[in-house]
Each structure stands twice: as structure tokens, then as C-alpha cells.
């Protein structure tokens, strides 16, 4: 087991290097210039832009820039934002808590919807409940988040005037009021993401449970005279959840990556909105750092999913 984990980690190193090379090259080849606004402003002499480019190393050949980036990364320096003129890790750390709270709670909401609904629907297939749940799930994941987001804003903020649609990190209040204000402004982004994710997961849980519920050992358990409740929770759900756990583990990097569109719509200052604004302003070090962290997380959670999978299902062996 330990050997397996070590081997997987060693394999991860070249793949991460490969990912970083690809990211770096794509970003370097992509058109655009972080100082594009300087170009259209007649008050700023072009030399300033050239100087800035030179001082930030933008004029060096691409391989030199890549190795400079790589050695800095190995030393733990994540780079320096062209646009904010501060270190990238500070930018990311500033955004991380909000992303974790918003996206994290949306995933919790999604699980809270998907598990009971999915299991219940699978135990009574083609019942009225199953049909309604199915329809809603289809509606849920066929509506993109940017659409539901705007719909929510129009209905809850503008028509009903209940919820604010601009997310503010700092709220001038203490105690319960502070908490309530935060909850109020988080409801819409969390629900938009949670409902979308929950709809997809509901379908997945349902089919996973349906796969298991037909197996012979479930029939055996029932014929033993076990109450239906025990059959479902002990025998069916436990086994059916193995693929679900993998899926959720693989979703975890998304939690860190934020939800770009939703964060943009509700002005949530998370990692996703950091990434999109960095892309729009060609702030390469930030794009590079965020995407690279993302790549690391994907690799790590893949490994974690494999390990958990084996732990849940002893039939799987590591070789």
C-alpha cells in the first residue's frame, strides 16, 4: 500500500512537469499583453511599457522564462503578479477562504440533495416520486449556472428584493447580524451551484443504487427477514456509494478552483474570479499559479480516490 502510494507520487512528478510545460507554452503563445492598457494611453511613453516588460522578464526567450519560473516554484516562490504587483501566493491565499466556504457549502448542499433523493428514487423506481425527481434532475443539470444565476437575481433580488446580489467580504456588523448578512448573500451562489451539482449527482446515486439493489445478496438480506431500512442503509447504500465517493473525490479540485461563472455573476471574490480576471488582463504568473495548483490538486485527489476506493472495497488490490 505504502509502496503503491510512493510509486504513484513518483509517477505524478513527470506528469506535473509535463502539465507545467504545456501550460507555460500555451500561455506564452497566447496573444495579448498585460500592459495593453498602456498602449492606448497617449500619456504614457512607449518606453515605459518596454521597460516594464523587460523588468518583469517578458522579453526573454520562452525556455529561459520557463526555467526561471520552475526554479522559483521549487523554492516556493509562486511568482509575482504583473497586474497587482504582489506575490501570487498572497493573492491566492486571500481568495481561498471565500472559495472554500461558498463552493464547499454548495457541494454539501448538493450531497444533501443527491443522497436522499437518489436513494429514495432508486428504491421505488418508476414511482411518481422517481419520475418527479428525475424530471427535476434533468431540468437542474440542463440549465447552465449562468442562466439560473441570472434568473435567481431577477427573481429574488430585483422582483422580490429579498437578497443582495453583490457579495461583500467585509460586513460592518457583529454577532448574529454579521452571520445573517453572510448567509443572506451566500444563499443565491450556493444554491445555484448546489442545485446544479446536486441534480447531476442525484442521477448518479440513483443509477449506482439501482445497480446494487438488483444483486442477489440484497435479495438474500431481504429473505433473511431484515427490515427494509437495514437492507437499504447497511447493504445497499454502503456498496452503492463506492463509485459515488470516487466521483465526489474527483470533484474536490473543483472546490478549490472555484466556479468561474457563478463567482463572476455574484461578484464573489474567489479563486475562480481571480483566474478569470487574470486571464482577461493577461496576468500570466497568476494564471500559471492557479492552473498549476489546480493540476496538482487533480493529481492528488485522483490518487486519494484510488486509495479510498481500495479501502472501501477490499477486493481491489494495489500492485
Amino acid at each position, binding site marked *: 500500500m505504502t509502496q503503491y502510494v510512493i510509486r504513484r507520487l513518483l509517477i505524478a512528478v513527470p506528469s506535473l512537469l509535463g502539465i507545467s510545460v504545456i501550460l507555460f507554452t500555451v500561455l506564452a503563445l497566447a*496573444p*495579448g*499583453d498585460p*500592459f*495593453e*492598457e*498602456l*498602449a*492606448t*494611453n*497617449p*500619456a*504614457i*511613453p*512607449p518606453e*515605459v*511599457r*518596454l*521597460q*516594464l516588460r523587460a*523588468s518583469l522578464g517578458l522579453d526573454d526567450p520562452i525556455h529561459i522564462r520557463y526555467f526561471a519560473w520552475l526554479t522559483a516554484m521549487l523554492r516556493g516562490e509562486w511568482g*509575482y*503578479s504583473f*497586474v*497587482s*504587483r*504582489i506575490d501570487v501566493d498572497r*493573492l491566492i491565499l*486571500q481568495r481561498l477562504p471565500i472559495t472554500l466556504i461558498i463552493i464547499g457549502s454548495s457541494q454539501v448542499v448538493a450531497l444533501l440533495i443527491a443522497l436522499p433523493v437518489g436513494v429514495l428514487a432508486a428504491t421505488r423506481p418508476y414511482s411518481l416520486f422517481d419520475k418527479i425527481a428525475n424530471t427535476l434532475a434533468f431540468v437542474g443539470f440542463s440549465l447552465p449556472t449562468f442562466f439560473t444565476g441570472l434568473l435567481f*437575481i431577477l427573481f429574488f*433580488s*430585483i422582483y422580490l*428584493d429579498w437578497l*443582495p*446580489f*453583490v457579495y*461583500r*467580504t*467585509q460586513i*460592518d456588523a457583529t454577532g448574529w447580524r454579521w452571520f445573517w448578512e453572510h448567509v443572506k448573500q451566500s444563499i443565491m451562489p450556493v444554491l445555484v451551484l448546489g442545485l446544479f451539482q446536486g441534480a447531476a449527482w442525484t442521477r448518479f446515486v440513483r443509477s449506482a443504487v439501482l445497480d446494487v439493489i438488483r444483486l442477489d445478496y440484497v435479495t438474500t438480506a431481504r429473505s433473511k427477514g431484515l427490515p427494509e431500512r437495514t437492507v437499504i442503509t447497511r447493504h445497499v447504500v454502503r456498496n452503492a456509494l463506492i463509485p459515488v465517493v470516487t466521483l465526489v473525490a474527483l470533484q474536490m479540485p473543483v472546490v478549490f478552483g472555484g466556479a468561474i461563472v457563478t463567482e*463572476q*455573476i*455574484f*461578484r464573489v*471574490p474567489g479563486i475562480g*474570479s*481571480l483566474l478569470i*480576471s487574470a486571464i*482577461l488582463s*493577461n496576468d500570466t504568473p497568476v494564471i500559471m499559479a492557479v492552473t498549476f495548483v489546480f493540476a496538482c490538486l487533480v493529481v492528488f485527489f485522483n490518487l486519494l480516490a484510488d486509495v479510498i476506493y481500495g479501502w472501501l472495497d477490499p477486493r481491489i488490490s494495489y500492485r
Partner: protein
Amino acid sequence: MNEQDLWRLMRRVRDGKMSRRAFAHRMAAFGITAPMATQILAFAGVSPASAQSVPAYKPTRAGGGGHLKILYWQASTLLNPHFAVGTTNQDASRVFYEPLAGWAADGTLVPILAAEIPSIENKGLAEDGRSVTWKLKRNVKWHDGQQFSADDVIFNYEYAKNPQIAGTTSGSYREVNVVKLDDFTVRVEFERPTPFWADAFVGAVGMMIPKHLFKDYAGANAREAPANLRPVGTGAYRFASFAPGDMLRGERNPNYHLENRPFFDSMEIKGGGDAVSAARAVLQTGDYDYAWNLQVEDQTLQRLEAAGRGKVNIVEGGSVEFIQLNATDPHREVDGERSHISTQHPAFRDPAVRQAMALLVDRQSIQNFIYGRTGPATPNFLNAPPRFRSPNMKMEFSVERANQILDQAGWARGSDGIRQKDGVRLKFLYQTSINAPRQRTQQIVQQAARRAGIEIELKSVVASVFFSSDVANPDTYGKFYADMQMYTTTMPQADPQRFMNQYTSWEVSQKANSWQGRNIVRWRSDEYDRAYREAEGELDPVKRAALFIRMNDLIVGSNHIIPIVQRPLVSASLNNLRPVLSGWDTTMWLLRDWYRET
């Protein structure tokens, strides 16, 4: 009226025998606009009534105004004015830092850290135009309690022009010399007589950072200064907190150097999102007090305004959306460079074709159906301040006349309906950046041109590419590898000198200057060059304005550029908020005077 009459009138105003208004009326009779009359009076030693430039400030005590919430759809990312790239960062820095003077909406100067605006009669301006002396206010303290003095001003000058720092403000400081006369007086010296003296230390480039906090970071280590993210300035609000790319907060500076200001106890600028929802947050839900730069279709704005909570503010500036007709040949390569300055455009070298093109741009419809209040049609390239606006240019839309002119010039329609002459077909590539109103404008021009036997192929490029300085990319506006292109050029100051260098022959954009030159249309005229050189040294404001009007008429009259619409600044504010805005300075230029009516 000759010069002597003018001087006699001006003396009468100075001696109080004639009112300023009567003077302005007399001038108007001779076709001289009111701002120009004011300028003439200023030259004669009659100071303009500066109170007119800025609306009256009503609150009678500082503070007590609660919290001011401002929404930007583009978030500020840094707070050092000398690093500020783009207006959002300049605006954010301006909350805390102040210049010696700012530009009001009518293009006049308002003193901020200066005790008075230099003029000939207060001996601030040298008669030969080679220096300007600024007297500083004596009661100004930095937010940490230190005294603001001439040393800070000198420090900012040295900081801005230091090439190691690569400050975006450096252009305003490199060619001047600044000396300290005493603790509260500095003199800016110019190599040549300089009519436009109000550049260094004024407006967006003039914000003062404190010497005592930045002096150890005035070199290659400039970016390590802690004060880059924790500004200590002299402004009406002092720093509370900042999250780059998200939110900026300030609180009332209790020791502000002007009494009864500011009105609000605290303020915030929230960034991010999109322009339409920013407009909603002010006009429809009233969650925010002010929303910046609403590049939103006018119809949408009008619908949101109907909610009655807020109003749209439209402030005139110098930005203009215009079409360029390439003077060089974009289809022929010379020394590895297309649109080479040694070539001539095969069709646009014929003035008849250019004139026809100008007749085919239906500016009035573009205003009516696309831009609305946010883009008034204009025949001029140089539109503001009003004293520089030419009365000579006309806009006309007439397909018939265009056809007539082309027929006369010998451009005959071929079998496919496209005109041609000597093997040159009137088929043009028309490029611009991706932006809904621009694509709609392209279509309007394309349709009109088709009716005149001109085929136009449309091309739109992503804005981040189109406006980039990427030397390797053929689609940048600087390279102009197309027959026609369209974009908005901005005018950062109330003086047109820097704005009008876009058509001087030494600014031609080409490979030798990595396509950084500002004359992108590559039009050249000795007469224009001469007028520009003359304006650079002309101290008489009336003659100087006439020179700029002449330059506008030369370039617009050549039809190598076709102005379309002006682009004023559009923002939204709640009905009870009284923001003081200006198209010639940053949005926050007079934040100290903002208040809420109760």
C-alpha cells in the same frame, strides 16, 4: 474686431467697468465660445470665477454621512499611483492620494494641495512660459501625522522619472526639471516655452506619495514597498483595508485640510462583475450609491432609470470613436512590413474615394440606433474642451453624392457592381475589436457602401489582441494590416497637445519603433507638422486654440479619418447622491465634495 479692441475690452472687464457675462456675449457675437472667452480673460489677468467649475458644497460639518458604496465592474488591483495601469487603479489611488491640482469638468484647474492655481498675475507662471511656480498649502498632513512639504513634491518628481521604477507617470516628468524654492514652494522648469504647463503634479499623474514611507523603496526594489498596498496619503479618506481585485475601504480622515469635508464616515469601492448588473445595483435595487463607467446600451439604461431610484450621469470628455482610412498599402510587403510608409494605398490615395467614404458613414443613425446618449455624433476629431472644437467641419450622409463623386472621378461599376479604375477594385477590409456596438456600426457602413459600389469585408478581432503591443501578431491596431479600422482613442488631459500628436509625421507607427508610434493611419502633412510644432511653443491661448482647430480641420478634411461619435463618461448614481465628476480627471478627483442630500 482687431487685437487692440480685444485688449481694450479685456481691460474694461479687469477694471470692473464691464461684466464678465457682457464680455462673453460680445465674444460670442464674434464666434468665440464662452470657455474660450474665459481663457482670454485669464490671459489678461482676470482670474476665472473658479467656483463655477465645481458645484457648491452644501454640508456644514465633516462626517455624519454614513457609508458610501461605489461599484466598479473592473476591480482595482494596486494602490500606487505611479504604477497605476488603467483608470480603475488611478481612481482607487486617488481616494487616498491627492495631486497639486485637478481638472474640473469644464477643463479648468482646481487647486487641491496647491494654495492657488499659478497664473501670470500671481507670478506663478513665467512670462516666457519656461517655468511654473506652485505654492503648496501649509496645513496639509499625511494620514500618519507627518507634515506635507515641498520635499514630498520633489521626491515624487524623482520617483516618477526614475527608469528603474518604470512608473506609468514618467512621461509627465522626464522632460521637466523641478526645484525646491522653500519648504512650501516648488518650481517646475521647462527647456522650451511650454504653453501646457499643467501636466506634472496635476490630475491622475500628479498624485503625491509620501517621501518618508517610500524613500527606501525608490529604486529597483520599488515593488517591495509595504505602502504600495497600505497607502498613506493626504486625501479626505484614509486607508482601512484592501483586497486586490475585490474591495477597497476607506474611512473619514478627521484631519483633512479642508473644513467640513468629507461628508461620509466611511466608503468602499467594490470591484468585479459586469456593467449591466452594476447599473442594476444602483438604478434598480439601490444597493449601491454609484456605479462607474457603464458601457451599456442606452436603451437598457433608460429602462433601468425608469425605476426612479437613480439617474445616469453623462460627462463629456475627449474620447472619440473614429474610422481610419489607411494611407499606406496594407497588401504589399516592403522590408518585411506591410502598410509600409513608403507605399501608398491604391484606392485611398484618390481624395474622391476618401470623400465618398466619409459620405457613406451615417453618423446620425449610428447615434440614434446604437449609442444613444452615450455617443453623440460628431464631425470633429478634437471635440473638447469646447474652446478647441472646430466649427468648420460638417457631417453629411448621402449615398447619392458619394456615387456622383465616384462617377466623376472615373471609378466605374464593373459587371459585379463593384467600382474599379485602372485595375484597382474598391474592395476594402474593415477591422475593429469585438464589441457589439462596433460590429453594428460596421454593418451600417458596409450596407451604405454596397449601395455606392464599394464592397467592404468585415473583420473583428478580440480586444486583448487588437489593442496589444505584441510585435509578432499581425492583427494589432498598431500594425493596421487592413484598409480601414475603427476604435476609440482617449484624451487623458484637458489640453489637446498630446492628443493631437497622433498625426505628426514623426509618430508614424512602423517596424522601426515596434509599431509603438501613435500615427497609426500613417497620414503625413508638412502643414500639420508645422502647426503642431508652432502650437507646442505658442503662449497665446487664443492663437494656440486656433492652431489645434486648424490641425483638426487638416486631418478630418483629408478624410483619412472619419470621426463617428464622441464617447462621454457614463455612470449611474442614486438620486440623492451629489457626485462631482469630470471627464478630464479620475472619477474620484473630488471625492471630498461628494455628499448625500437628505
